[in-house]
């Protein structure tokens, strides 16, 4: 195999990335650089992307070690808005807890929590206009909660029950709500990226004022779709915000397999000549401020922004994943940027606008509301218990009008079910 011709040279060796910590390892994150919360400058919204490359390598932060909002990026939100932000995040967490448990109780096939990443979705959704179009990945349920999408609709979808607006056709958590500016989630990674750019291009071409935002994980930035989208966004200066949620893990593959050993994900922006920001994703105010800045940029025709949200996936990839098999449990507890809900809570307390009792009461209120809504949703059924959609709907929606071959297969299926006498056969 190996060539014998160059005996004077050392043989080549292949670098295969390896995460720093594996199960059982002591975790020391001291090599993660956490700049001071007021360190990052905030460029003018119209600044040329080439003038702030350092923002692709640093970290936009607002909340400091003393739970105060500091620096140029401080969005100076009033206490009511901060409390709403905290509630949206707490509600997302309570929802995740309950739905994860529902999956474990066999009420549905699949669930994905966003624990530890609530600020990424909630902070962004609060900074966007309510009619801006989101092309999310599968861990931005916080957008729907922030936009007051009825929680029961989310649960109906998770249960694929008879109340499910998607008629049981889609995997749990792959929500879709056109009315709420929330594009149908795909299980295929990063496909939403060029779609968001296309939507934004259409908005610009039509002289609209709405912008688009999209999210993918750091692992998915390796997909061709990501790079196609960046190219299109750059070429046409599309009014779009490209969010990379760097939660360190893509199932069991650490961010090194997407290129994190070499550079940051925000730095991808530099090669495309688009604005890049690297943001503390566990700081809801930083996420909010960065999104607001990028949205203003987009809305004033100054093009796209790529935002890396530096965060940590606190739980498994999904209910089908067991992270204890590949990473150290200490990672989350030692994460240098803390927990997003705790940090915002502590900020409100430091402002004198909140206290532990109110937090406890709010958490309980969230849990109660989720539990009550779950009961209502379960009246519409749970997955695998009963037939929630009429059988023949299996063939609906493949095309606008059903072609002959689907009609024929539909008739065949109905006849077979009828003949079999199985419970499926009932109307």
């Amino acid at each position, binding site marked *: 195999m190996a060539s014998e011709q160059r005996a004077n040279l050392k043989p080549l060796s292949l670098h295969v990335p390896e995460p720093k910590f594996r199960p059982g390892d002591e975790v020391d994150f001291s090599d993660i650089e956490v700049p001071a919360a007021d360190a990052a400058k905030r460029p003018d919204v119209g600044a040329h992307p080439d003038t702030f490359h350092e923002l692709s390598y640093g970290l936009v932060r607002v909340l400091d070690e003393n739970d105060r909002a500091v620096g140029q990026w401080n969005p100076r939100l009033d206490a009511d808005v901060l409390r709403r932000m905290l509630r949206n995040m707490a509600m997302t967490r309570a929802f995740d807890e309950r739905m994860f448990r529902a999956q474990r109780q066999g009420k549905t096939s699949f669930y994905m929590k966003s624990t530890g990443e609530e600020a990424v979705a909630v902070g962004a959704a609060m900074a966007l206009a309510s009619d801006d179009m989101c092309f999310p990945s599968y861990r931005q349920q916080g957008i729907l909660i922030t936009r007051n999408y009825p929680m029961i609709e989310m649960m109906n979808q998770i249960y694929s029950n008879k109340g499910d607006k998607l*008629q049981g056709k889609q995997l749990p958590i792959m929500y879709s709500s056109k009315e709420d500016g929330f*594009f149908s989630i795909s299980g295929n990674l990063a496909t939403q990226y060029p779609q968001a750019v296309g939507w934004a291009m259409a908005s610009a071409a039509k002289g609209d004022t709405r912008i688009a935002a999209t999210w993918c994980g750091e692992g998915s930035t390796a997909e061709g*779709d990501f790079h196609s989208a960046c190219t299109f966004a750059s070429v046409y200066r599309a009014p779009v915000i490209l969010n990379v949620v760097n939660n360190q893990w893509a199932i069991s593959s650490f961010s090194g397999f997407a290129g994190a050993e070499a550079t940051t994900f925000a730095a991808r922006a530099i090669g495309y000549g688009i604005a890049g920001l690297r943001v503390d994703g566990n700081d809801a105010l930083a996420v909010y401020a960065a999104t607001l800045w990028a949205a203003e940029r987009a809305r004033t025709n100054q093009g796209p922004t790529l935002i890396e949200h530096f965060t940590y996936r606190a739980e498994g990839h999904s209910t089908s994943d067991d992270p204890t098999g590949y990473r150290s449990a200490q990672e989350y507890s030692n994460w240098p940027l803390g927990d997003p809900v705790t940090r915002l809570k502590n900020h409100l307390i430091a402002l004198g606008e909140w206290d532990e009792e109110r937090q406890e009461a709010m958490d309980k209120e969230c849990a109660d509301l989720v539990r009550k809504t779950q009961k209502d949703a379960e009246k519409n059924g749970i997955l695998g218990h009963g037939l929630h959609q009429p059988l023949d709907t299996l063939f609906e929606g493949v095309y606008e009008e059903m072609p002959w071959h689907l009609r024929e297969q539909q008739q065949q299926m109905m006849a077979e079910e009828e003949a079999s006498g199985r419970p499926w056969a009932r109307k």
Partner: protein
Amino acid sequence: MNDITTEEARIAPTPEREGDTARMNMIQAVNSAMDVMMARDDNVVVMGEDVGYFGGVFRATAGLQNKYGKQRVFDTPITECGIIGVAVGMGAYGLRPVPEIQFADYIYPALDQLVSEAARLRYRSAGEFTAPITVRSPFGGGIFGGQTHSQSPESIFAHVSGLKTVIPSTPYDAKGLLISAIEDNDPVLFFEPKRIYNGPFDGHWDGPSKNWSKHPGGEVPTGYYRIPLGKANTVREGQDVTILAYGTMVHVCQNVVKETGVDAEIVDLRSIVPVDIEAIEESVKKTGRCMIVHEATRTMGFGAELSALVQERCFYHLEAPVTRVTGFDTPYPHSLEWAYFPGPVRIGEALKNIMKDA
């Protein structure tokens, strides 16, 4: 903000010259279809590599940018995945994009966006979002394009639920079918047989080339008209054998039938999904024989599906085994192109064979 929800506001009046016809080749017919649709519907946009200022490497979009502006007709970066992904997003916004993939051989980087996104969007969102896009792409061989400019990948797309696949064989059909495809609210793959862009092809590559000026299919209405998707066209009536074909092969078969004197019925399928099963069944039950001709590779080519359909539905009417005449299961060769191409010799042999017990 433009109001894109009011149907009346964005549909321009029908062009005056609707009743007129003109001689067109297939490129001009395709161009005319886009022109007519862009004039009628502000939401129709045309995009792709080299389609803007230059008007496309085959000139199919010539003049459109000049007429409709750069916001509606524009060049794109060289990323087929991006072109289709962007088109899907534009469709979600409410536009009706007509992306061009420069050669069908280049379509594979876009497969995920076509198969997992465009084709599945209506189903997975229960109709909330759709992908009303028409992907135009020159396909097929016979132009010494080698293996990267000659392929016929139609059966890959025919296999995918949620996509429609259309292949015209004349300028007249190309325009009417393309208008229907653009108006269709589902994603359509529109494969243009580039060997017959400039004229019908009788299969004799070393013979004189013909243009569309004398072919009835070269007479094309200048205005708006539709040919429904899923309706075949019987281009020759006959009693002894049914030939199912589409695109370039329709013309090759017509010529072979003329040369051999076999009384064949030639059914031009025009679209393979949906396929016109009634026309197929009716013809095969009448003739009792069925030969399928396509340029694409044989194994799992669309002929396999047609053969199964005919066998399932017409078995007791058949007097000979269903026969496939196709390209070989090899890459499309360059210098040996005409040995690969299912030309008059291969089709003639197959015809003789299927008729031998008659």
